């Protein structure tokens, strides 16, 4: 963004060059190095402060644990980390009345990936690598769980350790992975797809990313201080009586909720305001619709999670009694607040996937999007309804039993907008030119998996059948079908589809097909039997099960290991294409897509477009004779078009 265009020379704009961009010696500007130093100093200060505040507290002395010290240590360490990364520079400059310039400079060094950068494309790549790393770490915990489940009694881990692993796996996947699509692809491609040269709030996108490593490390460090026994749902009062590891969960989840709020906020504001001229709401790509609604869900649901984590920390530190039934509190308070966030969260993990499916299908069927408006209605409808169904997690809890038919209705109603989205899928395939490329395989596989996830969800929405399934492996299998089978498959679809745009390099197609087929087969062979295991009476999160279920469990464990092998194929493919192989020339648009993101250079320049494009037709006008989606250069569009204000 050029800033020197309108302010006449000699007028002091009170501006200063932004310290985050431009060249400089690495130790003279904020970055990873100072982030780590800041975190260490912050941890020391926080721990000292917590000790000083609370060491005389009788409760703390009785516990032998100072939750104040742990919590403050984590929080101040995070602040120190962000300060060291440079996140606080801008707010402090604002306090001094300065207005930093954003001057994008072509800086193509590796170092920018380790800095608090204002380029949404760099943030997208940072997110991509980080999300893959978090996913693989969470996956390793899953393999540990399956290893323990090889036999019906404890044989490898002690019961408490097993719960730590289960909780860490669940929390890692459910909280870190919330941004697996909106983080990399949302940040990278939303501005490109709407014809914007930047995000609305570039510092917020960097903030949303740089919180995630802090949350990740805080969560993992929980293992070192005893882990947390409560699974990813963290039900009180179990969470209140747990040891210090619980503080790690609460702080990490709280941080991640802030990251979600900040990231979603930025996306929503960007889509509303930064669309290029001509990018009307009916021309908005379906992926952007998915991102918009996901961002909205994050912005509106995640604050409740922040509050819940904060409330539990209060119960554990200053001894409020919000969840203590003997002192006027109630464990139901957590269940309600948590699931009020938790159910939209489930759709935060589903809608981005639908967005990718809707985006990719027209490209690989060479047809206009089938039922574009129906799909949008589906996405928006799912997002809206998701706020009204949370009590179906509490069917058996003994709360508001009179409400159950209504919640049953709202829950089952979700299948109507979800049906819209499926309608679009099958409509797109009608008489199409279907190319089964690797991204398309992942889209179809994801849809097939999600279908099973969705149908099993109906069993959970119906109170009588939920009685059997609730809290069992059935539920666990159900949401793995929607999240792992749907969301992660769509994530891979997006990755195979867009990586050429992000890096200029294709992933290997043959390895990609091996990856897809092995993942699809072993995924199903892992999670289909788990429906049966759940229905036959095995609760979630236990390793003690009936001897008669051992054969099935062993089958599942072996399949799970094979999923791990499939992931290794992917990791090899990913590293080979991005890091090891030399750069190969790539067709600018390897899939023949009409999308706006493919009309700019590969990889895109720092400001995406030399001139903000003018959109003249929709993104999916295959076979309709429409010209390119946008006019990219100046001739013919010399003035600010009508309607821009």
């Amino acid at each position, binding site marked *: 963004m050029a800033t020197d265009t309108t302010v006449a020379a000699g007028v002091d704009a009170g501006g200063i060059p932004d310290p985050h961009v431009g060249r400089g010696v690495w130790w003279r500007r904020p970055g990873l190095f100072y982030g780590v130093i800041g975190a260490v100093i912050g941890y020391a200060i926080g721990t000292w402060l917590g000790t000083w505040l609370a060491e005389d507290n009788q409760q703390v002395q009785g516990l032998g644990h100072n939750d104040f010290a742990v919590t403050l240590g984590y929080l101040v360490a995070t602040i120190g980390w962000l300060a060291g990364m440079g996140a606080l520079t801008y707010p402090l400059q604002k306090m001094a009345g300065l207005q930093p310039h954003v001057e994008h400079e072509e800086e193509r060094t590796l170092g920018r990936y380790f800095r608090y950068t204002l380029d949404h494309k760099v943030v997208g790549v940072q997110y991509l690598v980080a999300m893959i790393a978090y996913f693989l770490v969470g996956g390793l915990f899953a393999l540990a769980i399956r290893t323990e489940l090889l036999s019906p009694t404890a044989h490898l881990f002690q019961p*408490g350790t097993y*719960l730590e692993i289960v909780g860490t796996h669940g929390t890692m996947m459910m909280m870190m992975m919330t941004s697996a699509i909106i983080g990399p692809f949302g940040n990278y491609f939303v501005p490109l797809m709407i014809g914007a040269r930047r995000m609305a709030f570039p510092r917020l996108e960097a903030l949303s990313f740089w919180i995630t490593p802090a949350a990740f490390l805080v969560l993992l460090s929980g293992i070192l201080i005893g882990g947390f*026994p409560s699974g990813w*749902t963290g*039900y009180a*009062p*179990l969470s209140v009586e747990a040891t210090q590891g619980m503080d790690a969960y609460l702080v990490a989840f709280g941080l991640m909720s802030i990251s979600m709020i900040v990231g979603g906020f930025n996306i929503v504001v960007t889509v509303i305001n930064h669309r290029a001229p001509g990018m009307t709401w009916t021309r908005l790509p379906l992926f952007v619709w998915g991102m918009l609604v996901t961002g909205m869900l994050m912005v509106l649901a995640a604050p409740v999670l922040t509050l819940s984590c904060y409330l539990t920390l209060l119960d554990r530190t200053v001894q409020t009694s919000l969840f203590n*039934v*003997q*002192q006027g509190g*109630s*464990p*139901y308070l957590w269940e309600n607040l948590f699931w009020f966030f938790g159910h939209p969260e489930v759709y935060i993990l589903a809608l981005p996937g639908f967005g990718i499916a809707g985006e990719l299908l027209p490209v690989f069927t*060479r*047809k*206009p999007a*089938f*039922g*574009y408006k129906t799909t949008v209605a589906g996405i928006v409808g799912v997002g809206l309804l998701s706020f009204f169904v949370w009590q179906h997690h509490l069917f*058996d*809890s*003994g709360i*508001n039993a009179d409400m159950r038919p209504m919640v*049953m*209705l709202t829950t*089952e109603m979700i*299948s*109507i907008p979800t*049906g*819209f989205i*499926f309608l679009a899928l*099958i*409509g797109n*395939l*009608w*008489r199409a*030119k279907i190319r089964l*490329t690797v991204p*398309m395989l992942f889209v179809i596989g994801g*849809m097939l998996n999600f279908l099973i996830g969705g*149908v099993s969800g*109906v069993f959970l929405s*119906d*109170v*009588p*059948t939920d*009685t*059997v399934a*609730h*809290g069992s492996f059935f539920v666990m299998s159900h949401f793995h079908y929607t999240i792992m089978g749907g969301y992660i498959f769509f994530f891979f679809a997006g990755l195979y589809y867009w990586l050429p745009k992000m890096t200029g390099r294709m992933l290997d197609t043959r390895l990609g097909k091996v990856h897809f087929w092995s993942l699809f087969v072993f995924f199903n062979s892992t999670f289909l039997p788990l429906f049966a295991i759940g*229905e*036959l*009476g095995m*609760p979630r*999160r*236990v390793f*003690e099960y009936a001897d008669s279920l051992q054969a099935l469990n062993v089958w599942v464990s072996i399949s799970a290991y094979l999923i791990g092998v499939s992931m290794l194929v992917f990791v090899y493919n990913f590293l080979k294409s991005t890091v090891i192989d030399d750069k190969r020339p790539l067709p600018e648009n390897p899939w*023949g897509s009409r999308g706006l993101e493919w009309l700019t250079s590969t990889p895109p320049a720092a400001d995406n477009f030399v001139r903000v494009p003018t959109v003249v037709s929709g993104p999916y*006008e*295959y076979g309709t004779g429409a010209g390119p989606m946008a006019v990219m250069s100046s001739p013919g569009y010399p003035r600010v078009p009508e309607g821009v204000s």
Partner: protein
Amino acid sequence: MADTKASEESKELTDRDHLRRIGLIWLVLTLVCVPLVIFVLGPHLPPGTDSEQARNQQEDNTVLAAVATPVLLFIWVYIGYAVKNWRIPADTPVEELQDGPPIRGHRGFQTAWIVITSVTVFALFVFGTQELWTDYGSGTGSGSSPVWTPAGYSTNAKDSKLLVVQVIGQQWRWTYRFPQYGGVETDTLVIPAGKTVQFDVTSLDVIHSFWAINLGVKADANPGNNNIAFVEDPSVGPVDIRCAELCGTYHGAMAQTGQVEKQADFDAWIAGQIVLHYDLLPQLPAYADFYIPQTDGGYYDPSQVTPPAVDSGLPPPPPAPAPSSAAPSPAPSSS
């Protein structure tokens, strides 16, 4: 897999031909699979037939599976058909790509789709609510004041004509209290066959969930809350009991096998329990819907512990221990 012959052939087919083919395949598969689901799979679906609630849940499971089957089949058949017939080589060069027909939607198809899904959803809602209603909560924990209750239910456990069993979860074991038998507490669950039983589920510490798998009962045990679940007509046999809500380290170890016995065997068993625990009875707190320990330190205040009245009429109890006070009036013995 560019089967040129096939693709030429499919070009000649009209939309109607394709629809007819897909519909035919789907219809055949549906006619084969739905009866299989209903008559072959259905009788084996959990939670079995050990009680009225379990039978109804099994029926519900069968209905849902029967409704889901055609939906799954349709999507599978459709996608399979589309991929088989309308596929072009994945590695077609970008320059040679041809576009498909520019279909943006189909009003009739879309309307039909929306109507069918909506009708199905509302039908399932009505069906589920009806099951919930006629089965008195269908075995689920229905809170402290359930809306749908079987005949004989009373808000006061001791006046209830049903057999009331208070299920007490604690880290990490279950105990059971029988208010109509003097509030005797046992560490195993035995209930009489053929009767309607009311489970009052509560917890002393964290959230547990009482899951009597083959009876079709699941109710969360919350501290300070009485969660009521009904089960009708249990049949003689073992009852698998597990904890279904994560409650800490030994959550998985809260597994137990209870028993449904004939009425006479149950009477003998409960009498035996009263004899076995007779000395303990005065130390138990008076029966209440839920245990609320005292606040300081989380223990009972001994001065407030009221010994429960032992409802005899059953085997001669040992001489009553000293501490006694205004005990609640004797409860009618369940017969």
